[in-house]
């Protein structure tokens, strides 16, 4: 196992909040009075033991923690065996974005629901296999920007950082000088303003 403390998402992290909003299947282990409304297809007031639902991950994590388990989490389908097989066959061919926008971030939570470690292994396998691809893309100055569409959020950030660093290195090697630029926010602000003025 990896050290559990090696990665802790920041409390205010937008990415982590969005990843923990993803729906995760689970099964209730207890009756929950007055929480019938969690199940949109039923009209009872109380939620009955045995009910199977898809709830946001933050709620599932909380219900599956502590001494008193309220619910039992299950694996979302993209981490189940059928999908794991697809990833094992050729991870580089996959549109990971379609699997899930937060494939790794979500997976790092989900893997704790899988005691056998298969999810853990497939996360690692997927990342290491696809890393070369991302590196090649980032190093290639005129790589197709639409390629980004097939990457998950973490991969996109790596691609973007790598690509920017490559571009800076290229400019430096070619011109040995990087032009001073307006701050990015100032620049965008100006562009937006221009667009607005043209519309008026």
């Amino acid at each position, binding site marked *: 196992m990896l050290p559990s403390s090696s990665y802790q998402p920041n409390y205010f992290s*937008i*990415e982590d*909040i969005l990843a923990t909003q993803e729906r995760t299947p689970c099964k209730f282990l207890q009756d929950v*009075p007055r929480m019938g409304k969690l199940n949109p297809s039923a009209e009872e007031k109380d939620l009955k033991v045995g009910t199977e639902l898809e709830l946001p991950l933050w709620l599932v994590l*909380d219900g599956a923690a502590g001494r008193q388990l309220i619910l039992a989490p299950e694996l979302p389908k993209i981490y189940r065996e059928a999908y794991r097989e697809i990833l094992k066959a050729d991870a580089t061919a996959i549109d990971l974005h379609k699997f899930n926008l937060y494939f790794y971030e979500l997976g790092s939570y989900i893997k704790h629901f899988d005691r056998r470690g298969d999810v853990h292994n497939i996360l690692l396998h997927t990342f290491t296999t696809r890393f070369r691809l991302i590196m090649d893309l980032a190093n290639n100055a005129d790589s197709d920007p639409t390629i980004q569409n097939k990457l998950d959020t973490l991969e996109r950030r790596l691609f973007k950082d790598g690509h920017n660093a490559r571009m800076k290195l290229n400019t430096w090697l070619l011109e*040995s*000088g*990087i032009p001073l630029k307006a701050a990015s926010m*100032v620049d965008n602000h*100006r562009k937006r303003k221009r667009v607005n003025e043209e519309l008026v």
Partner: protein
Amino acid sequence: MFAEKACSLIKELSRCEEGLPPYNIELVKEVCTEIKQLHEQNKEDGAIVANESEIAGNVNPLYPTLRIGSAAVKRNIRCLLAYHYNRLRTLRTMRWQFGSILPPDIKTNLSSDEIDWFSKYSSCLGKYMRSIGEDGLNLCLDLRPPKSLYIEVKCLIDYGKFELSDGTVLLLKKDSRHYLPRSECEELITQGVFHHIV
């Protein structure tokens, strides 16, 4: 579902990669109402659970309800604070990029608390920068290692008069070109007044 509105606040921020969407006071108010209602309900349930567990010695059937209720409050608070926190962080970056005066159209997107925070941050940063060394150091300058002493710049707007450190006064007109010491024009480049020609 609980905390759905609170999460929409976060989605608003994530859609806007740079810059700030207008402060969504309506949605913030709705989230506050949800928190308050859940919190009241939890207090009630909590009292019952605590009371009856003492008597019966086993767990009250309301316990799972309470767990879910308090998880929902926690989630709502996390989203609400993250919304405000990330907006302040963006404002912070704006202080470094725009300087201590924000363009009016950005200012209209802020809440009054945010405008207060911006000026507080600005003065706190100013105080710190003035405290460095003998006569202070402007950390908003020297953002990149220097490559050359003089650079050629084009003025992008009618800026007006600009005084150099040696006392020379330049009149900066739109599209005028100047050959100036890099240290003199770095701030105006950052603020988008000059364009650096290479």
